[in-house]
């Protein structure tokens, strides 16, 4: 089985985020594999292991100066990676990203495409559905659990009130929520092996997509401070906190 996993290298989420003068996210620092993508990588490896003779290819779009995020996913056990990196894609929207990844996926003809429900830096949350539509693949989204047979995929799909079991034939695209699987830690052998695994860096020209450069029709036009909430009184508990809270609840009429 050939499994493609969409992954993204993102700025360290624990470092303070900032926008550049052009109102785009500052991506100049160190990059990491988006933690949200580790679930997809793990799922792909598990499905591959269960089906013998399998291959897991990572696909990505973004700056390729630092490839340590992709290496982390290769160290978990993925076989190879392809990253589309082109200055002309700087600031691209989710639809453009989907078009680029669709072109890459089309060349690979996978049985299964896996993505996170959303990235942790931009969290637009629409790219996977756009990709599925461009590829005419059924989209099984927001998976809490995934079962794959040789010809079918079935997931537990998160809903507001619980979950639905939903099914389609392969090839298909699945998006996974955090916690769907337990991502493995790369071991020393994996980390060493990842150093020699193949990472192809492609440009828009390589994909025959030069026309996409700067073609997206949405722009961030301004950035302002959000109104801040004022904080109120605090009480250091000396045994009176419970009564003080009851009085407060009464004063705001919830009791």
């Amino acid at each position, binding site marked *: 089985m050939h499994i493609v996993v969409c992954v993204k290298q993102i700025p360290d989420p624990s470092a303070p985020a900032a926008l550049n003068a052009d109102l785009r996210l500052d991506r100049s620092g160190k990059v990491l594999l988006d933690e949200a993508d580790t679930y997809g990588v793990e799922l792909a490896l598990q499905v591959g292991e269960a089906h013998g003779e399998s291959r897991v290819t990572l696909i990505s779009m973004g700056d390729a100066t630092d490839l340590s995020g992709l290496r982390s996913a290769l160290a978990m056990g993925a076989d190879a990676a392809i990253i589309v990196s082109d200055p002309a894609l700087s600031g691209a929207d989710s639809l453009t990203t989907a078009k680029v990844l669709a072109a890459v996926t089309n060349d690979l003809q996978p049985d299964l495409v896996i993505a996170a429900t959303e990235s942790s830096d931009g969290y*637009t949350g629409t790219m996977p559905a756009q990709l599925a539509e461009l590829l005419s693949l059924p*989209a099984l989204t927001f998976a809490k659990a995934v079962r794959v047979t040789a010809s079918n995929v079935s997931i*537990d799909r998160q809903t*507001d*009130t619980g979950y639905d*079991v939903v099914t389609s034939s392969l090839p298909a695209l699945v998006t996974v929520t955090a916690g769907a699987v337990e991502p493995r830690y790369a071991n020393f052998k994996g980390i060493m092996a990842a150093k020699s695994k193949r990472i192809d860096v492609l440009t828009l020209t390589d994909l025959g997509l030069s026309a996409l450069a700067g073609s997206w029709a*949405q722009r961030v036009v301004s950035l302002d401070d959000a109104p801040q909430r004022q904080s109120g009184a605090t009480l250091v508990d000396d045994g009176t906190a419970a009564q003080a809270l009851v009085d407060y609840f009464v004063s705001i009429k919830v009791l």
Partner: protein
Amino acid sequence: MSALTWWIIAEPNASGMTNATKELISEAVRQGGDVSVVTWGDTSAELVDGAGRYGARAVLQLDVSTGFVPGAPVAAAVAALCAARSPDVILLPSSYDGRDIAGHLSARLDRPVLTNVTALSVDDDVVTQHQIFGGTKIASARITSDGVALIVVRPKSFTAVEEPRDVTLERIDAAPSPVTPVVITESHLDERTGPALGDADVVVAGGRGLGGVEAFANVATLATLLGGAPAASRAIVDAGWVPYAYQVGQTGQTVKPTLYVACGISGATQHLVGMKGAQYIVAINKDAAAPIFSVADFGIVGDVNTVLPALNALVRSRTA
């Protein structure tokens, strides 16, 4: 300039209409739009009445089965209808199905989609606002080419206001999707008593500071005593103490209750963005420097596992 045509994508719902649908209709009416609700499945009389009550002029019912995941088939039907009727703006709720439909529709129509929108205004274009960096900054965005604007709105961004109008129901033969359908074979409901998290007037949320899953019972008890819903930070959802449906924040639910009680929650920006809109915020945390206190109207510096049991006992004795 004549009124813009706004379509609101409305999920079929057992109680007729989701709160998100009401909020989106109201905002479109407030913007002076000519508003239609677009839905699928068996449209209930409650939905049609509700659409009119909040100011929509028409309900367009697509004959798409609710037995499929709606993303692709609903998007195909809406895209075909767009070609025939050229709406100016389509608003979708930031729900699971809303996000799916938006993605499929964007690709089918080759139009950009703006998501996580919390406010909007109309000049020559639609200008959307997005809370970023945990809600500390607001980015404004604009769609820069002609064509329908696809906008996915965070829940509770707008207030629903009744604005009754005569409403018509039109049934529409849906254009089929070329994509293999995803069939829904089973539906499971999580056990939950009391109001749904998104609708609750009081939300009591627990975090890692509870120390363990057993202590979540104190959170759930206070929620029940106050007629509210229990909720959680991502830390304890990831730890498996409570289901994902409890999660409040950037990657969970947005809530806007009268009262939000944060118990043993540090107040990470990704959590704050989901609850900062509460009218009153109470925080209980043993660390006086915890960021949650910066948004709290009333803060208790103390141990949740002492304060909550005492509080529950007092509240119980009052309500008994």
